[in-house]
């Protein structure tokens, strides 16, 4: 079959099974847009800003495990996509970003809307390609999808000079069946000797903790993790990126660890004699001061990425490969060595952990029935949402206090239900990410828990939701401030709120939502909270924007003491330090 470059590109995406492409047109991408118009297999979602396209594709990818696909034009279209690419890169999310580029003969001439997209995006992509000729498009697309989705996933940019998609030059089109990149062979199956060493260390341990992160979700290893722990019955903590990979309602679940982790999770990590890290990267929100991290613990580290192991914390036993495969091998060997596991040995450790939990664990019944003379507490908003949705919703979030309350108080029992920007911490992520998740799962409840600061960074996407009829629910935890910034200013800068409040400049969010054709609900009193949220969630086919006014003075706790603190050093409330 003979096709022009633009059709070759679109047919290649269809061959990859792409259902949605999130984008925004412009000069350098117009040939490609013409091909999109002519086909029916794939739906293009017109966002209102290219940052929205990348976050929507990212939300789709996190919810489904399939790569998100983005199409933008050259110059400003490409640069607007950068924040979303960096967001996906930091959290290892598979994404394909196709950027239009000026024609080859114009490259380097400062042509209209020319920008060096490959150069600008280089530090924040897993790999990138420039199309040199239409003939090579199928091979490039095939490689790009392979790279984005295998090993440690990540975003891949394909920069497409306009002349390579010209409709008047035809080439033979055949999509390759397989792909082989000789310089790229990520590990899959673990070394059996390392599995053996890991299992022996597990059997010897007295104070073990399983610490699982986003890599376990990327590897679809939730089921294997649960099976492993049916044998071991060890305490388990998840990172912010890992929430849901181990059921939050399981009795062995300690809650999230790290900066705003639970007391019992942080104490368990600090006092452990064995840490089994599964697809987690010991980032600085987890370790606090690396030198003081878990001083007595032996570390087993399972990861697909060599460069993540022993980067911050030296691993005693490194298991390279797909985390899912490594867990399966560990399960097999543990079943053989079952009689060597002594469950009584770790009973004192489990008792110690339940003591920690009863001393300072989060109170999940908090503020649910307050009276109207008290302000609404942000935690109560999340707790009600959890109860009303039976913990079954997809929750996307933005960045700040609301994000941490969502992570702490919504219990995720399944992977991929919690969708947030953990690594880059990108305000503006939540709404477009919810659009991507809703397109992937139209029959599921998709809720964006946001703050009045973050939501205004991609608020224009309310219009996209109107065009494509995306009935997501937006819960704006409105503390009339950049709350997390203000909390740091309260704690470290003598309460000087430099540039963290808006001086009565906030819009009327209810009217704003209505002007886009959506429903707006304002909640200001405790007595209206539960019924207001129920009403919002009962409107199945409408986007509802719920603007909830909460106590502006609330802080997120626990909070690690930094700098120079360890995981046992926490603020438990405004007055109490451990």
């Amino acid at each position, binding site marked *: 079959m003979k096709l022009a470059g633009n059709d070759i590109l679109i047919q290649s995406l269809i061959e990859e099974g792409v259902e949605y492409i999130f984008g925004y047109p412009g000069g350098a991408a117009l040939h490609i847009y013409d091909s999109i118009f002519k086909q029916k297999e794939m739906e293009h979602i017109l966002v209102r800003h290219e940052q929205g396209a990348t976050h929507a594709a990212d939300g789709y990818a996190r919810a489904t495990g399939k790569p998100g696909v983005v199409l933008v034009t050259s110059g400003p279209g490409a640069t607007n996509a950068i924040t979303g690419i960096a967001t996906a890169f930091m959290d290892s999310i598979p994404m394909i970003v196709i950027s239009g580029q000026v024609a080859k003969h114009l490259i380097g001439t400062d042509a209209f809307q020319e920008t060096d997209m490959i150069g600008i995006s280089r*530090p924040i992509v897993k790999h*990138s390609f*420039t199309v040199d000729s239409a003939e090579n498009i199928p091979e490039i697309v095939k490689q790009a999808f392979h790279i984005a989705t295998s090993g440690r996933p990540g975003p891949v940019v394909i920069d497409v000079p306009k002349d390579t998609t010209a409709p008047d030059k035809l080439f033979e089109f055949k999509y390759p069946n397989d792909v082989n990149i000789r*310089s*790229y062979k990520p590990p899959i199956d673990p070394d059996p000797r390392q599995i053996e060493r890991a299992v022996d260390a597990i059997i010897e341990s007295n104070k073990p903790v399983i610490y699982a992160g986003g890599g376990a979700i990327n590897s679809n290893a939730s089921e294997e993790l649960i099976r492993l722990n049916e044998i071991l019955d060890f305490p388990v903590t998840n990172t912010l990126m890992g929430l849901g990979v181990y059921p939050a309602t399981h009795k062995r679940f300690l809650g999230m660890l790290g900066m705003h982790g639970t007391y019992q999770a942080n104490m368990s990590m600090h006092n452990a004699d064995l840490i089994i890290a599964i697809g987690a990267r010991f980032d600085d929100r987890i370790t606090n001061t690396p030198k003081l991290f878990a001083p007595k613990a032996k570390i087993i580290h399972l990861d697909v990425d*060599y*460069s993540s192991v*022993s980067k911050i914390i030296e691993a005693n036993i490194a298991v390279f490969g797909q985390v899912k495969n490594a867990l399966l091998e560990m399960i097999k060997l543990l079943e053989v060595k079952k009689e060597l596991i002594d469950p009584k040995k770790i009973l004192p450790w489990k008792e110690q952990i339940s003591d920690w939990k009863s001393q300072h664990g989060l109170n999940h019944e908090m503020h649910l029935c307050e009276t109207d003379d008290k302000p609404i507490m942000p935690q109560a908003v999340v707790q009600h949402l959890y109860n009303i949705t039976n913990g079954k919703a997809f929750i996307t979030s933005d960045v700040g206090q609301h994000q941490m309350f969502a992570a702490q108080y919504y219990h995720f029992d399944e992977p991929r239900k919690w969708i947030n920007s953990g690594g880059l911490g990108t305000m503006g992520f939540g709404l477009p990410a919810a659009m991507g998740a809703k397109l992937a799962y139209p029959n599921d409840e998709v809720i964006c828990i946001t703050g009045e600061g973050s939501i205004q960074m991609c608020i224009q996407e309310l219009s996209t939701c109107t065009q494509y009829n995306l009935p997501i629910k937006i819960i704006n935890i409105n503390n009339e401030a950049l709350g997390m910034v203000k909390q740091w200013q309260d704690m470290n800068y003598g309460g000087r709120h430099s540039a963290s409040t808006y001086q009565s400049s906030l819009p009327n969010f209810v009217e704003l939502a209505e002007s886009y054709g959506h429903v707006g609900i304002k909640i200001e009193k405790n007595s209206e909270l539960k019924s207001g949220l129920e009403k919002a969630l009962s409107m199945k086919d409408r986007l509802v924007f719920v603007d909830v006014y909460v106590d502006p003075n609330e802080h997120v706790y626990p909070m690690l003491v930094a700098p120079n603190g360890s995981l046992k050093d926490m603020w438990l409330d405004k007055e109490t330090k451990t």
Partner: protein
Amino acid sequence: MIQRKLSIILENKPGALVRVVGLFHQRGYNIESLHVDPVEDLKEYKFVEDKLNIKLKEGEVSHLIIATTVNDNLLRQILRQINKLIDVLIAEEVK
């Protein structure tokens, strides 16, 4: 700390070299000297073919030598990060 020499075999493709060089800057490592040539005489590069089980053609890959002063741990980290680059076939220390 002593100066180390890193030997890197990478695809001779546009943009491959700058990914390696850029990585040093991104990760805060310093490059003290740098030399790169396309590989024409394949005899000395049999180890690449053996290690990866591939056949090389003349001019298809480049050999890059970078000198940098780092400790053992950082050296291991740099090599892992360079090896992770898609266009890099082999990165190792010259002993």
